[in-house]
């Protein structure tokens, strides 16, 4: 029991931190521009694919450096030449634009890289077991994922709280309109934040690609969960996004690891049931089966009881 729990916690942590890497960029972008960027996970996918190609030439570490920069530049370009234009048509149009962009990027990835799964590997340098617990190995790469996520958050935190740019961004989060009045070049800041946010998604893609497999559906797999996380945490709240990311990561990880479900519950309640009942599927439901559903359930519950999300306070 104990070992299952510890590994589930570690895996949940890895997933949660990865999710937060996406959610933090998404939150930054939302806070400043009021747009929920539906294509955010697509930039994550681009990060994985570009890193895969680059690492073919100069190895994993080169990919880790170059791919996020390229993705960030692409993101900035999308903001400059696409989103900025659509901005004047209102929020629905913006949301729909990023939705279409997600669709297009998925097609473009298939156009350039094909439909098959890419053999994107973890670097040899990290191909060993970091530690062994109860006879189970925890790979060094997962440790590296945790380390790099934490490193990035530390950097992000320092930039946001200590630098001038960070202070302007923070101001834009709480008082989006005042910043423009103070004479800052808001469109330029928007472009940079969008670029930085997508670059973060790119980093997440580079490090997740080898473990979560690099294939054209990877954006969809993670995407909707990330959007849900930022809403659960409260749109525009970085701490909220952090809590929600870990919550979702751990919740899913525990549900998958748990070997329990309706049969056990019913047995515990002393209810016996007929195998051929029309609701058979419901009575035999196991927790690992509903793991993928949990984030959505959580979302719906949170939105019903606290429409602004866990830590959000901004009404629309």
């Amino acid at each position, binding site marked *: 029991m104990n070992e299952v729990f510890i590994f589930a916690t570690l895996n949940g942590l890895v997933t949660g931190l990865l999710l937060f890497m996406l959610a933090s960029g998404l939150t930054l972008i939302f806070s400043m521009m009021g747009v*929920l960027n539906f294509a955010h996970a697509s930039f994550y996918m681009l990060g994985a694919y570009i890193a895969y190609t680059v690492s073919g030439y100069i190895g994993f570490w080169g990919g880790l450096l170059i791919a996020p920069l390229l993705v960030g530049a692409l993101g900035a370009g999308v903001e400059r030449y*696409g989103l900025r*234009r*659509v901005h004047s*048509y209102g*929020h*629905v*149009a913006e*949301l*729909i*634009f990023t*939705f*279409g*962009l997600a*669709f*297009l990027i998925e*097609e*473009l990835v*298939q*156009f350039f890289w094909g439909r098959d799964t890419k053999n994107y590997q973890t670097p040899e340098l990290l191909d060993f077991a970091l530690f062994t617990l109860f006879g189970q190995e925890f790979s060094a790469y997962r440790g590296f994922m945790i380390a790099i996520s934490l490193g990035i958050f530390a950097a992000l935190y320092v930039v946001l709280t200590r630098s001038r740019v960070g202070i302007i961004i923070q101001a834009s989060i709480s008082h989006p309109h005042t910043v423009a009045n103070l004479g800052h070049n808001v469109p330029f800041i928007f472009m940079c934040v969008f670029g930085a946010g997508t670059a973060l998604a790119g980093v997440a893609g580079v490090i997740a690609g080898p473990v979560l497999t690099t294939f054209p559906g990877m954006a*969809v797999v993670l995407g*909707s969960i990330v*959007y*849900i996380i930022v*809403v659960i945490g409260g*749109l525009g709240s970085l701490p909220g996004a952090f809590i929600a990311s870990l919550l979702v990561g751990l919740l899913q990880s525990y549900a998958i690891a748990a070997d329990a479900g309706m049969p056990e519950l019913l047995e515990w309640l002393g209810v016996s049931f007929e195998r051929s009942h*029309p609701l*058979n*599927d*419901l009575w035999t*439901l196991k927790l690992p*089966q*509903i793991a*993928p*559903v949990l984030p*959505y*359930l959580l*979302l*719906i519950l949170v*939105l*019903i009881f606290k*429409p602004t999300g866990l830590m959000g306070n901004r009404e*629309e």
Partner: protein
Amino acid sequence: MKKHLLLWAAYALVLVLLPSLFSSVLGISILNQMTIWILFALSYNMMLGQGGMLSFGHAVYFGLGGFMSVHALNLIADEVLVFSITLIPLVGGVFGLLAALFIGSFSTRKAGTVFAMISLGIGELIVASSLIFVDFFGGEAGVSGDRTYGPAFFGIEFLQDSEVYYLGAFWLFVATLLMYLFTQTPAGRMANAVRDNPERAEFIGYSTRRVRFITFCAAGMFAGVAGGLFAINYEFITEENLNALTSGRVLLMAYIGGLGFFIGPIIGAVILTLMNSLLSNYSEMWMLYLGILFLLTVMFLPKGFAGFIMMHRAAWNNGKMGSLVLPYCLTALPAGLFLTAFIGMVELSHADELLHFLSMDLANDSAFSWFVLAMLAAIGAGGVKLARPRLAAAWEHANAAAQEAKS
């Protein structure tokens, strides 16, 4: 009033005559798809265009209506239920409505991003459950039925696709009429008001939540009717019909067609169904073209194709349309050339063998082939650049004249 009756008569006439014009197997099959998608897109427009609720999960009502309809078909086949399959769309409608009643009761409190995210969450939830509740949803394979059982409808047993078409066209006509009439009622008009300015709507006595809820339920019901048509036409349904892909597709249709206009989604559904059925035979890349078309529409035609047509109202009223024809042609020709060359390049990049294109044989590895296409594209782009000022001037002229006439 007269004018309206005439329009509706024309609509009915077109629906009746279409199968005679496109009587091939492919033609009828496409027409059948169109009836389904037009109805579905109209119901989506009710939600977003009329009610201002951006949903990423509209396929839920379509799919649930469809699943219940297929199950109803099976119950008819097993003689548990005895009624004509012509009424199946009603089954879809009822269950679409029930689902919307339940989901709408908690999701319509807010519009905007919160609503959009709840709709996404519910959509994903239902899709995930569909893989869990295999008895009802049939797992990955889906559920199939047979539409030829049950009492015959005046001797028609729906063995032929064309018979199915008339059934679909009938329900489409009825549903279109009802949806249009809804826009003319107090609830329908308040849906527009709430879309435009929810705050003010509350100060003239209306609960925005209630107004949204009514629109939401109506839209869910008509989506369910479309799902019923789907069930009759394909005789099977899978999880794919309620997932995000289908939700996204209907959003695409409504948006490309034009959200603000009642006929917008009809145009969008026709365009996308045609692209889907025709292009997908010719090119593996059609989804890529669709994505590009969608983004360009969002960027340059925010009101969709219907909005683009409506932009010409002023020019039309002043009889200035004629002056626009030539500039339009002069721009469209090179634009078409550019587009053709672009498509040629996209196709060529993925061609394993010789690509027969514009009566040329192009090869993937031949620099000359690429050069020819690049030249054509450059000529097209240059032509557009040359023609644009003239078009802009003509546009200016036509609309300036319109303003003069007004004042």
